[in-house]
């Protein structure tokens, strides 16, 4: 279970995240949406231990995996990229097959396209076990087919491992098709929180309504 109380992140006078209370169950998949600078990445980075919070308490499980927004290609081929720091080669091959990258196995990771590299980054985290999976915009560089593969892989991983999944996204498709819960952030505060379809149909605040209106157009 993840429990956040009075969480704040400030840069000088500027508060970029302000969450009084948030509880996420251990098997829940939560999508965080919101405009640029709404605090999605900041929240994930605090939960991952990448940056320090300014105030409040955060209770998270011990084993956390985090996939950053910017995908990085290590030197070497795709298998070497996935097994970096000791994960299993068989698992890596299985994931490459699942994310339709197996035909590129012998290629250098630096030669991949943005969408391919993002799927490779996902393979890298999904080849390991965790209690909390944090994904920062996991489909931002993917085309429709790529996004479909990512969604499927995340669901399968969750079913196998029974972990909580938290992801930030600008994609209504990802939120609707993979999340149990959708939280909309605005200026670091929670504007709407509920089942994705409920939030889309009844966003609550005026700001959330206008944000969702834009999303519906995208979808």
């Amino acid at each position, binding site marked *: 279970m993840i429990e956040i109380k009075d969480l704040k992140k400030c840069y000088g006078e500027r508060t970029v995240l302000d969450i009084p209370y948030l509880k996420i169950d251990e098997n829940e998949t939560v999508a965080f949406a919101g405009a640029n600078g709404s605090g999605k990445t900041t929240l994930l980075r605090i939960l991952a231990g990448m940056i320090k919070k300014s105030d409040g308490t955060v209770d998270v499980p011990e084993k956390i995996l985090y996939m950053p927004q910017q995908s*990085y290609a*290590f030197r070497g081929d795709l298998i070497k990229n996935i097994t*970096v*720091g000791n994960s299993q080669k068989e698992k890596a091959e299985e994931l490459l097959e699942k994310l339709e990258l197996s035909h590129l196995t012998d290629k250098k990771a630096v030669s991949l396209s943005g969408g391919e590299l993002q799927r490779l980054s996902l393979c890298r985290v999904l080849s390991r076990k965790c209690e909390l999976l944090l994904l920062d915009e996991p489909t931002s560089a993917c085309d429709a087919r790529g996004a479909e593969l990512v969604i499927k892989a995340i669901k399968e991983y969750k079913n196998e491992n029974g972990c909580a999944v938290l992801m930030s996204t600008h994609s209504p498709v990802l939120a609707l098709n993979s999340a149990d819960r959708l939280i909309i952030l605005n200026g670091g505060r929670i504007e709407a929180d509920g089942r994705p379809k409920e939030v889309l149909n009844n966003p609550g605040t005026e700001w959330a309504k206008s944000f969702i209106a834009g999303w519906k157009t995208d979808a």
Partner: protein
Amino acid sequence: MESFKQAFELLFSLDKELLQIIGVTLRMSFFSTTISCLIGLPLGALIGTKNFRGKRFIKKLIHTLMGLPPVVAGLFVYILFTHYGPFGSLNLLFTVEVMIIAQVILITPVVIGLSSSFIESASKPVIETARGLGLSRSKIVGLCLSEGRSSLFSVVLNAFGRSIAEVGAVSIVGGNIQWKTRVMTTAIMLETNKGKFSFALALGIILLLIAFVVNALASFIVKENADD
């Protein structure tokens, strides 16, 4: 032109003294660069990847030491190893070993400063990705060094360049003794003082040739590894 001719004549004549001077120069530069890198690269990686109290002060101190005048380093080592100094009993003054020690003091801050700056800026995505996978600090440091090995190699070359071209510290602690501690730079200085400018220039050309060959070899090795 006369100097170029003299330089090649000296090289191809396989003059015993010249070969001995080149040997001492390469031995000193190799060991001082190796020791400096063994100390400096891990420290640079640590400073570049870890945030700790006093980091800014340490970086300022290292940047100051990067500009340490060679004669000051030489004087410091001389005082330490002179007969009445704390390490006088080791009888290392006017040996190649003490020249290496002086150069390590000079070069290590350069290695730490350059490698930490590189790792701090260029390795951010490596660190974030590796930390996201829950890798240990030692594995993250290893990954940073491995991912940035081309750039770190240029740090090593920079250290070697500083070592082979250095004259102030080695002349103070080495004494420029013929057949013992004379290196290319101190030999050039001696010949210049004697007024043999042409010969000094020939030695300078040979020094440049050595630096060029070492750099070319290193670049070749880096290029071979770049596609790994």
